[in-house]
């Protein structure tokens, strides 16, 4: 898989992006609309055992209405979050249709409970396309599409030169997701 991914990398598209990563990240992450203070608080406040209140805090930061799940679905969701280990995404299949239908929400839960997963976002998807990676659009947390999204951001992170990493205090997946989102937003 890694070989296939590397052979499909377009260096000419990536190089100008890598030169701007710190600046792009700063613009996106520190935009008051992104509420960076609350994001950074959530890095600390979300921890095991995951409570309903913690997931509500993530919904609030994402600007989503709170979930309307019954008790069993809530339990299923929290057990899923405890069980999943990066880079697995197939476990998404174990979720109830009501939960799996919202990729933005579930990806945010995954990001705050296990930082190696990234938040699904349309600007990021646009940015990925500009970098040569066309990830299909979806509302549903499809394990393969979301897996490709996360894996691509991870690949970009691995290929990035050290100058991208020098100044930040958020997880590296957020650093790159935010920078790619800003890149997509500017297009």
């Amino acid at each position, binding site marked *: 898989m890694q070989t296939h991914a*590397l052979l499909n*990398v377009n*260096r000419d598209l*990536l*190089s100008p992006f*890598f030169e701007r990563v710190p600046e792009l990240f700063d613009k996106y992450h520190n935009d008051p609309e992104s509420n960076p203070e609350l994001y950074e608080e959530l*890095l*600390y406040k*979300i*921890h*095991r055992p995951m409570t309903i209140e913690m997931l509500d805090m993530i919904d609030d930061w994402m600007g989503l209405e709170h979930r309307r799940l019954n008790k069993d679905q809530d339990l299923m969701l929290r057990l899923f979050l405890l069980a999943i*280990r*990066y880079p697995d995404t197939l476990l998404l299949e174990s979720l109830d249709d009501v939960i799996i239908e919202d990729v933005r929400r579930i990806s945010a839960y995954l990001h705050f*409970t*296990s*930082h*190696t997963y990234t938040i699904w976002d349309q600007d990021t998807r646009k940015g990925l396309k500009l970098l040569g990676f066309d990830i299909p659009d979806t509302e549903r947390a499809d394990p393969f599409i979301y897996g490709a999204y996360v894996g691509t951001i991870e690949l970009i992170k*691995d*290929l*990035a*030169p*050290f100058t991208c*990493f*020098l100044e*930040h*205090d958020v*997880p590296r997946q957020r650093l790159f997701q935010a920078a790619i989102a800003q890149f997509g937003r500017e297009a």
Partner: protein
Amino acid sequence: MSKTEIVEGYTPNFEGWVQEFHEWQTRIGFDPAWLGDYRFEIRFDWISAGESIEFGDFEGMPKWSRRMQIPQQNIRDAIITMISVQGDTEFASVEQQNHLLATAPTEYDRKSALRIMCEEQRHGWQMAYLLCTYFGEQGVREAAKLLERNAQDGTRLLGSFNAPIDHWLDFFCFTHFIDRDGKYQLKMLSTSSFQPLAASMGPMLKEESFHLGTGANGLRRIVKAGVIPTSFLQKYVNKWVSTGLDLFGTDESTSAQWAYVYGVKGRYDERESNNDADRDHLNEASRGLYFDEIKAEMARISKGRPEGDPELYIPSDKFNRGIGKYSGKLYTVTGEDFEGTEEEYAEYLASVLPSDEDERKLVEEYMAPGVEWIQYREWKG
């Protein structure tokens, strides 16, 4: 764009050194089982390293990739010294810190510190690999010395790396201030005319950014927890800043100037800067950038302090310096001349730096078991 090369086979010289490394781990009490599935690897980023010498008298010529391409013995000696000093700091920090694992405030901190120690050892491996692989007998001797000197015996090459790190506050200050200095040193070597040295720096810098992030986050979490007053924390900031500033070396350094002439070590912003280097004040220029950076970082760390606590600040770059033009002179933390005798200055220093009583209070009261002196954080992989 960079793709890291991981070296698969080692020379006999380096394999011999690896045996000595395992003995060193046992000697300092670092249990190899703590590494888990972590593997020491030799990593190079050749693309970031560049092909042509970027500054100095050899500018524009191809970078040197073997010892015999280096035109003069004194340049080889300068490169060996740079690699040896860098390697020495990597192993020293593990010697200073590994005892802290037993008293980590949270599992997150234990794992972070362990990751840092693994990566510092990998950086030491990388430097030893360069010495053993590229510099023959002389390199092998210098690589052996990396494991013979010891921080606890006070025989490491740089002062900060012989200072005891007795508790987690010192650990966070060390990773924030001293590893940040490390970032500067690595970046200055990332443009080196000796290509294997320059190519070593990319992967090391990616790892180093986690180390200093751990320090900054640790200090921020202590401030947010609000148990240790900022007036008390300030004494530890005062203690570590002067050490960090001294690590940049003497003012008007001729060895920094020669390293620049040889193209071995550049400025921190060598590739970004549009100005010619002021070769007489290379250390001062890097130190100035570092000083500005730690001031901005401290303002961010201080933001989370409880209402009524004084703001944390970076003391003057004149205060308590061990080398350079301010060394041996009496200055206050705010950089004014101290009016008084040497005895009075000693009393003043005792009031602005951690005393034995402060150390006792920190460990026995503020950090006593059950006290949540640092904001909780979970390890999330």
